[in-house]
Every structure is written in C-alpha cells, then in structure tokens.
C-alpha cells in the first residue's frame, strides 16, 4: 500500500495542482483534528498521572497529615474526589477550556492568576532564544554550506562542540564570565519594566539557545551541501544558470524543507529546556514555578503548567507541519494518497 504512494503522487501532480486549494483545506482540517485528538490524550495523561502515582490524591492534598473526618470530607467535596475518575477529568477539562485551572494547594489562589503573572517571563526567554537560534543558526549554516573553507570547517567543529553544551552548563559559564567577572548582566532575577526585563533575559536566552544554534547550523549546512551535490542542481549549473539563481531557486528552497521542520522542532524543544534555565537565573517564570510546585507537591499547579507546555509544544508542531506543507505541495499530495 505504502509502496505506491510515491508513484501516484508524481503522476497525479499536474492534475491535482488545479484543486490544490481544496486538498490543502482538507489537509489543514485534518491536522487540526489531529491536534485536538493529541491535546485530549495529553490532557488525560497529565490529569490521570496523579492517580497512577503511589498514594491517593487525598494524601497529596493533606500532605500526609491526619485530619478530622469533617476536614477530609470537606477536601473531598472541594476537589470532587468522590466522583468517578472520568467525571473528575471532564470537570477539570471543562474548567481548563474556560481558563479555570483549579486552586493551588499551597497558595490557596486560583492557578490561573498564579500562572498569568508568571507567563510573560517564560514567553520572553523562549522568544528571545528562538530568535537567536533562527538568526545565528541559519546564518552560520547557510554560510558554511555555500562557502566551504577553513572558516566554515572551524565553525562546524565549534558547532559540534556547542551541541554538547547543556543549557544549565552554558548558563553557569555565562554567569561566571558576563555577570560575575565583567558585570555586564545581572546574575539573578527577572527585572522590572520592558528594557530591564530584556536585559535580565539576555543571558538566559543565550544559554538556552547555545545547543540549538549549533544544531540548526549543522543541519542547514548539511542540507545545503546535499542540495548542491544533487543532480538537478548540477544540471542547472551545467545549463549555465547564474549561481545566485541556482542557489535561490534550487538549493535554498529545497534545503529549507528539512531545515524548517527540524528548526521548528528544536524551538519547540526550547520549551522544556527553559524550565532548567529559569531555575538557574531565577527568572520567576512558569518553569521555575513548576520546579517549586513539584517539590511542594502542588498538583493543580503542576498539572496546569505541564498541560500548558504540552499544548504549546503540540500547537507549535502542528503550525510547523502546516507551514511545511504550504512550502512543499508534494507533501500534501503524498499524504492524501496514503
């Protein structure tokens, strides 16, 4: 069944070009349906995880203390622990859809308000890191791919080493050099006001970006090298097309396919990495709050933050998938046949 996919897609190509709009719409609708399905599974995992853990949900709520039967009954009523699991899940999911993530066990505040005051710090560090990854990674990768030489070779060797730098190790080195020694940036904290916040987020963003910059640079370089050696590029060159045209039309556009997908995945991967980086720099974002809540067993908060991260990760991946298809019509046709 799968073997015929390739042949069909190439044969059907000129014909389907005309109704590409409908196919594309169907593809996007399918992707959104898949997105919702994955989100529901993910939310069930995040919610259900609490119930497969050793000890009942009640022991987490009481922190192992012995309480009066009335207090226990009150807790049970407050968190609806007497209902069957699926009913609790639906209640929780219904609340989440309306922006109600429940009440923190530790802070006795609504989780939503606790998160909303912290989310900007996390978004800022991820956006800044993503900007660094895309700009620096693509720049270095494209240069190294198109201009082989000692400079490109050393850049790629450096990238190989940088790929092995975990964000927290990079963070410690950056703090030692730029915060303690040179004093250019603050060591801890998130700062107040627009520019001060950005100033506080520079080192965290760079630390978070290091390994991904290296990864994207290497990937881009490899993709461009592979395209340069491809038969159709060789044909274009031998036909006497100007190198600029060949590079733009055949090399970069084809190389963009794998690079875009994996670079997007890498940026989505920054989400998880930001948890550790926030902890180093005490940025006061969601990640730091997550680690604190894990240590204090504040489950409503842990569930809410995990769900947010997973949702962001899934949405990002879907967006990348759709954009990838917009750039490469062959993908949607291939999928449609299978």
């Amino acid at each position, binding site marked *: 069944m799968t073997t015929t996919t390739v042949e069909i897609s190439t044969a059907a190509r000129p014909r389907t070009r005309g109704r590409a709009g409908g196919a594309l719409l169907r593809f996007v609708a399918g992707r959104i349906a898949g997105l919702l*399905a994955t989100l529901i599974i993910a939310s069930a995992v995040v919610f259900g995880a609490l119930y497969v853990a050793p000890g009942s949900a009640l022991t987490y709520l009481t922190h192992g203390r012995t309480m009066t039967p009335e207090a226990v009954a009150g807790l049970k009523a407050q968190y609806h622990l007497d209902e069957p699991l699926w009913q609790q899940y639906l209640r929780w999911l219904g609340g989440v859809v309306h922006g109600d993530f429940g009440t923190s066990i530790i802070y006795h505040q609504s989780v939503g308000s606790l998160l909303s005051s912290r989310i900007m710090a996390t978004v800022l560090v991820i956006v800044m890191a993503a900007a660094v990854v895309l700009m620096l990674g693509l720049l270095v990768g494209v240069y190294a791919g198109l201009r082989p030489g000692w400079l490109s070779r050393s850049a790629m060797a450096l990238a190989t080493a940088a790929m*092995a730098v975990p964000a*927290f190790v990079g963070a410690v080195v950056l703090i030692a050099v730029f915060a303690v020694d040179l004093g250019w940036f603050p060591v801890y904290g998130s700062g107040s006001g627009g520019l001060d916040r950005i100033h506080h987020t520079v080192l965290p963003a760079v630390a978070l970006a290091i390994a991904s910059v290296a990864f994207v640079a290497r990937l881009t370089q490899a993709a461009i090298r592979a395209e340069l050696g491809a038969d159709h590029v060789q044909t274009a060159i031998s036909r006497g097309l100007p190198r600029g045209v060949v590079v733009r039309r055949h090399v970069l556009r084809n190389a963009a396919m794998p690079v875009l997908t994996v670079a997007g995945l890498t940026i989505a991967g920054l989400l998880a990495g930001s948890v*550790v980086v926030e902890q180093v720099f005490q940025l006061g974002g969601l990640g730091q709050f997550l*680690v604190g809540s894990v240590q204090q067993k504040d489950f409503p908060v842990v569930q809410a933050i995990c769900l947010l991260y997973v949702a962001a990760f899934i949405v990002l991946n879907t967006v990348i998938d759709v954009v990838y298809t917009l750039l490469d019509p062959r993908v949607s046709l291939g999928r449609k046949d299978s």
Partner: protein
Amino acid sequence: MSTTITGAATAVRPTARTRRTRRTGSIGPSGWVSIAILGVVVACALLAPLLAPHSPTDVDLMSASQGPGAAHLLGTDASGRDLLSRLLYGSRTALVGPFLVVLVSSVLGTLLALAAVWFGGWFDQLVVRAIDAVFAFPGLLLAILATALFGSGLEAAVVALAIAYVPYIARIVRSAALRERTLPYIAALRVQGMRGIRITLRHILPNVSGLIVANATLAFGFALMDLAGLSFIGLGVQPPTADWGAMVGTGMSGVLQRHPEEALFAGVLIILTVAAVNVLGDRLNERWEARS
C-alpha cells in the same frame, strides 16, 4: 563560466568523500578519538573506588572550598569533599542513567516500528498515532512530571525519559524498515514462503541495525543532558550521591564567589562526554548511510 566550474567542484567533493567512507566503512579518526574518550570515562566509572583518593561523600568542613593542592588534587567543594573523588564517582550516575534510558527506548522503539512495518494497515496507523501522542511530551517535561508523582530521584526520571525517547527511535526505524520492505529481496523471500517474523528479524532488523545503533548513541547524549539537568535542578540524583549535573548546581555558589572549580570541572566533563557521544553517533550514522 567560472561559477559553473566552482559549483561543479564543490559538488564533486562530498561525493568523493562518501565513496572513500563506503570503501573502508570506518568511523574515521574522530570516531576513534570519541571511543577513546568514552573508554576513559567508562574506566573511571568502573574503577572509581580504586582511583578515588578520598571518599566522595566524606564531609570535612575544616578544608572546605580549597583550590587545587597536594592534599586534594582538584580541591574541595563547599562541604570539604574531595572534588576529584566526586568527579570520578559522578561518572557512574552520568553513564548508568542514560544507558538504561537508551536500552529500554531502543528495544521498545525498534520492536514497535518493525511490527508496525510488517503488519501495516490499521496497526501501523495505530502505532504512528501513539508515537505522535508520546512525541507531544518533551522528555524533560515528562521526567519532571514523573518526579513529581514518584518522588525525586534517578529511577522515575529514567523510566519517564525511556518512554519519551521511544518515538524518536521508532520513527527512524519505521521509515528505514519501510524502505527496506519495498526492496526486491524481501519480495523474493516472501515468494519462497518465509514467514513475516523471520524476514523481519533475520533480514530487515540486521539491515537497519546500524541505524539503530547510531541513533541510540545520539539519544544517549540527549539523555545524559536531560538527566544532568534534572539533577541540577534538584529533581534527579539526590545528595550526597556524587553526580556531575548536581555538582554544577552545588558549584553555583562557588561561581558567584569567583572560585568556579566545582561547577566548571563537572560542566566540562558533561560537555566532553556528550560531545564524544555525539561525534561517535554522527560517524556511525554516516557509515550507515554510506553502506546502504
């Protein structure tokens, strides 16, 4: 005219390089250097009790935060524990955790992928959907969730990461096995009446095994970084056990007081080990691509 020539020349070079690797099938000098580095790390982990000059957990507050010296070759940490001994013992948790993660995720991922490819149809679709669902969880996040539920420590984190890494291996093996399945020799074996499980295990699996080993190697590096990060934020390996990630964490106070030895040494060892693993994985990947 000149652009044509340079374009052709740059295009020919990688082809020539691929041909050379294809003939020798070797992992090259950088691959062997990586193996040597990893060999030293493994030896340190195995021989830590013999090599370590002191106990890794003995607290001696009288000689806390010393620089490198005669009594303590690399100095001591804030509790006066010998840094060299802690670094040597730290290689144990640094290797065991990722090894278990990679072992479990590779076996599970490979079995899932091969079964999906051979049976195809709805089973294949089910596996692909399941893989996508697990892929929605970043490994580190799943590990944090697991430590929240089962308590901080290496065990919960290793299990969570092993599950989170299954899709990574399964996806790669599935696409390689799909390609392998369309080859004429598989059709020939089927015509001869060989059973699916035998074809899969005796022919498809050996032919994609190079790819599995290469990607398991790369996954080892990611697992090492994830687990070290988890220990760094205090959710992984618990004190007083020596661990590189945790040492970077406890060394933070030293960094602020301008004696960053503890964090620096531990960090460098993490980077060196991960870099060696990554380079080895890349070479193995290249070798596999050159052979197929």
